């Protein structure tokens, strides 16, 4: 379903909160299942080439939302670009990383599991689980479990992004917004045809921006 179609679907404007709750629930369950101190989801902001804290459970829950850092940097950036999950068990020995984490977030985890959030062929962001109990030795089954969780978080993140883009489209911040608003006023058959055309336009614009 395209953003524009989503924009006119009933209830989409109120869906932002619901999707955010879904994402929050996902990180909370991830944190709980792994017995971790914190879990968070980063959203990739492609235009700025930055990762943004989109949901946080546990340590840093109040402060980190909305915080950004360059997408090409560090472990999260690496996980995103390579599409490969990574588990690190003694982060404090990565002095460069822990210093920058301490400066930006005030919290320096000792261990981290990080996994890319993939929907179809797009990488939307990264899910991290920080500081599992010290005695829990990592097993490959845990990495697989994290992968399954990432799938769920990716869907939640995708829904949230779509709802946001839909709102932007209707609110007039997107390039096709005026056309979308006109299309939304049309009769059923004509509206479908207009959205078909707008979807095609959207695809062309998206591909040229890729």
């Amino acid at each position: 379903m395209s953003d524009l179609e989503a924009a006119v679907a009933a209830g989409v404007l109120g869906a932002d909160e619901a999707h955010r709750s879904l994402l929050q629930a996902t990180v909370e369950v991830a944190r709980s299942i792994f017995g971790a101190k914190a879990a968070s989801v980063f959203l990739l902001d492609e235009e700025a080439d930055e990762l943004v804290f989109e949901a946080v459970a546990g340590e840093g829950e109040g402060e980190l939302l909305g915080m950004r850092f360059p997408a090409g940097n560090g472990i999260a950036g690496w996980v995103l670009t390579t599409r490969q999950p990574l588990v690190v068990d003694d982060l404090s020995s990565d002095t460069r990383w822990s210093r920058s984490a301490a400066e930006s977030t005030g919290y320096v985890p000792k261990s981290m599991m990080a996994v890319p959030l993939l929907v179809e062929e797009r990488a939307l962001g990264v899910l991290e689980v920080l500081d599992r109990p010290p005695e829990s030795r990592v097993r490959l089954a845990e990495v697989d479990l994290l992968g399954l969780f990432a799938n769920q978080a990716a869907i939640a993140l995708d829904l949230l992004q779509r709802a946001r883009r839909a709102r932007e489209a209707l609110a007039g911040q997107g390039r096709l917004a005026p056309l979308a608003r006109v299309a939304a006023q049309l009769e059923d058959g004509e509206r479908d045809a207009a959205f078909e055309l707008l979807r095609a336009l959207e695809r062309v614009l998206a591909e040229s921006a890729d």
Partner: protein
Amino acid sequence: MSSVVLHEFEEDEELPAWSLPAEAVDRIRVPVTLPEQVTREWAWGGSTGAGVRVCILDSGIELDHPLVGKVERSVAVVRGEDGELQVLDDDEGDLCGHGTACAGVIRSVAPDAELTSVRVLGAGYTGGGEIMLNGLGWAIEQGFQIVNMSLSTTRTKYVERLHELADRAYFKRVLLVASAHNMPVESFPWRFASVISVGSHEEADPLTFYYNPSPPVEFFGRGLDLDVAWLDGGTLRCTGNSFATPHIAAICALVLGKHPDLTPFQLKSVLYQTASNARGGA
């Protein structure tokens, strides 16, 4: 039993292309035949990977890291002012730590292999696919015997070009060793039959590896709880297929150190025969 070298191909020697005239048969005798029982001793006994050129397509390699040692050459794929990608010599080292980790793993198993770094990661997320393809193309052109790729892309728009590159590598005797995904996603190049795809097992021996009779993941290497080389001369305890991949790449370097004429498909057969779950793996 040692390999039988019957004939060395000259670099520029013209080989029959689309058909094989009777008088040309002598010219294409194969340089290596595998023995009846391929054992680890035959495959890499006494080899240190010396003379084998290994390329690491990653985030760069930290220079002078004690667990990595000499890096033959470091290049980076960068976008020039005209917007075109180019491969330039690079002295920035490693931007993340990951390439250094892969290099350290290879060095620990194949201590005398020659390492070259191609930095394709770390310059930002956008445009990463093009940079990776460009770096891989360069590595194939340079004729490295092994290219370690602890990375993948999910972008279908790159699949066709990536496939062409993987096939070109295969026929040029450039072995691509690529990390598999342990998530339910379609990603590449590890799914291609022309590459060696690697997942992780849970054992601690670097030379333990398994052949998987249910592909697409074809081999499992050591990938759990490893102390890998990391930034600033340090180490980091890591888990992931990214580190299983250089283990298999390094074992391939050992084999090629002893049998440099093996083609990628012969090498894959040797891996199959010497896997820990196969007869020659004992």
